[in-house]
């Protein structure tokens, strides 16, 4: 608990974190299983994977928005409770925040934008009302909106503006760690760049640490220091973002990168057909062995019997869970 702060100690650390959802009748969704991931201060870790791979569930479990089924989360070395009490939420909301995917569904339509952005300060601090209003106005300006936008309602804003509101809402409490769950997926290309650059500027000026969840590999590679790849609830590969993208080791990462269309016709004409077929299976009652075995073009006998562990390659920063590298 009172361990001394080391300079390179992780800010947030998941240790064998699992999240299951019981469906009744003995059926259980293994949404996140045994995921260990440490995020260093001021680092951006990108998390990629297909829909259903458990990326968002991992992010929400990490923040305590879902109670943990197994494993633990450490924040600055302190183990956080498996299920948060209201007091835990009050304390931790100031440290950890989330930016949501859908800028249309994540803002309360009956609150003004000023109320939405200021709500965190009202709930979690004792600041007087004029000070809250002053900070809300400052944050509106900081995310590229104007003061009179504060008295309007979410439906009056475009998708990109709503995502700016979501960013101001999350960052006004000056958290250290922010989970960005597909923050630009719903936006047009030209607006994506606006929001990504805004996030980058705020990350620098506030010294934020980010978990950037997205399915767009090119964007994740652009944004992140490290890239983590999830498949069916498990972490299959993690390493420096460029290394993972340009030299994928796990066959699933190869499949993802090989499927990612590049805005370059010559590269696309040179691309061969993707080998792996099939779709992500149901995460209910998963069979033993490697979870990717059913789709893997390089599958071996051992893959169907034992689950590969996430192990470092020669480069100790690169971890891959695959029997090919055992």
């Amino acid at each position, binding site marked *: 608990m009172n361990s001394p702060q080391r300079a390179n100690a992780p800010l947030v650390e998941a240790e064998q974190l699992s999240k299951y959802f019981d469906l009744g009748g003995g059926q259980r969704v293994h949404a996140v299983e045994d995921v260990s991931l440490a995020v260093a201060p001021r680092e951006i870790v990108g998390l990629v994977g297909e829909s259903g791979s458990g990326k968002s569930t991992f992010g929400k479990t990490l923040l305590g928005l879902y109670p943990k089924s197994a494993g633990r989360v450490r924040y600055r070395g302190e183990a956080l409770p498996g299920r948060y009490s209201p007091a835990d939420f009050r304390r931790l909301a100031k440290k950890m925040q989330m930016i949501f995917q859908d800028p249309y569904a994540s803002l309360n339509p009956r609150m003004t934008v000023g109320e939405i952005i200021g709500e965190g300060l009202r709930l979690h601090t004792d600041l007087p009302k004029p000070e809250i209003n002053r900070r809300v106005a400052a944050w509106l300006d900081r995310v590229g909106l104007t003061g009179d936008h504060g008295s309007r309602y979410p439906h009056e804003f475009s998708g990109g503006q709503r995502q700016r509101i979501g960013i101001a809402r999350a960052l006004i409490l000056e958290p250290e760690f922010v989970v960005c769950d597909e923050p630009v997926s719903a936006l047009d290309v030209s607006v994506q760049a606006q929001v990504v650059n805004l996030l980058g500027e705020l990350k620098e000026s506030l010294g934020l640490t980010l978990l950037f969840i997205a399915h767009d590999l090119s964007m994740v590679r652009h944004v992140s220091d490290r890239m983590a790849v999830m498949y069916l609830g498990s972490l299959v590969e993690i390493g420096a973002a460029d290394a993972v993208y340009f030299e994928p080791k796990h066959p699933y990462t190869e499949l993802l990168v090989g499927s990612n269309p*590049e805005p370059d016709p010559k590269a*696309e004409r040179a691309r061969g057909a993707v080998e792996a077929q099939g779709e992500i299976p149901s995460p209910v009652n998963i069979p033993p062995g490697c979870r990717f075995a059913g789709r893997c073009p390089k599958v071996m006998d051992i893959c169907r019997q034992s689950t590969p562990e996430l192990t470092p390659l020669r480069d100790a920063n690169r971890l891959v869970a695959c029997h090919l590298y055992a």
Partner: protein
Amino acid sequence: MSAAPLLSVEDLHVEFSTHGGTVQAVRGVNFAVDAGRTLAIVGESGCGKSVSVQSVMGLIPIPPGRISAGSARLRGVEILGNNLIDGRDVRGAEIGMIFQDPMTSLNPTMTIGAQIAEPLRVHRGYGAGRAREEAIRLLDSCRIPEARKRAGQYPFEFSGGMLQRAMIAMAISCKPALLIADEPTTALDVTIQSQILDLMRELQGETGMAIILITHDLGVVARMADEVAVMYAGKIVEHGSVDDIFYRSAHPYTCGLRSAMPVNDRSRHAELKPIEGRPPDLFAPPPGCGYAPRCPHAMQLCGREHPPEFAIGPGRTRPDPAHYSRCWLHHELNRQRPPELHFRE
């Protein structure tokens, strides 16, 4: 002059009356596609790309919609407001269409097999048994495993990727000469997107059909397109071969889109350059170029007069069907070409 293209759309204008006034969604659009070729129409939300093809398909609700001018000819025969050519239905038989969200485009109360059989019975007069066998064959040709069993299932029993395959099977059931695909892979994961795009290309190779692909994803354009039309604020601002658009981009909007996207190039980690501002209000479209308020190269003229199609490239000849850009920077009297518009080979 070569033979007439399979489909040619000329000077299409589409508007919608609303409580707030009339939206001029499509403001004079020309495009054409030949058999065996793929035309990609690319642009951001609200640029009019879907409305353009929906007008051709007769899918615009009239009112509030209105096709105020223009023509669309299939093999030279006008099809706007006309659904029969030589007694054959155009929509469904000559032109098939697939949509972004297969779940909401299929009937949840009918089996997949019955839905694929329906166009065969309506357009081809097949009997129930024959249509059902053909539906199973089509599902199989769209690489759906256990096609016979799957034909008896309902849409909710299919995954998103499988539903899109079923949609394609339905769209190609009557062997259309043209397949219109409106954001067919936007709702899918990249891995499934790859499979669907590969399938569309294989089917094109087998049948020689033309494809019009509507998308906002330049990666998908690079993979699929022969020709590209870039739309902005209801107009095509640049048109050319896929290599023209990517390696010799001529319109500031095309250049802006490209530099707003991350490039997967190890050697440089270029910063994303967003396009500031928003598209114009199409209730009252600007008199000049729609992109002028956001354009870093805008001149006084740009806000006043709408640019015509300027031919790009060595010949600088007639634009059709080659590379053109609706941008005053390409007027022959303009000698100051901004640096990022120099052609990149």
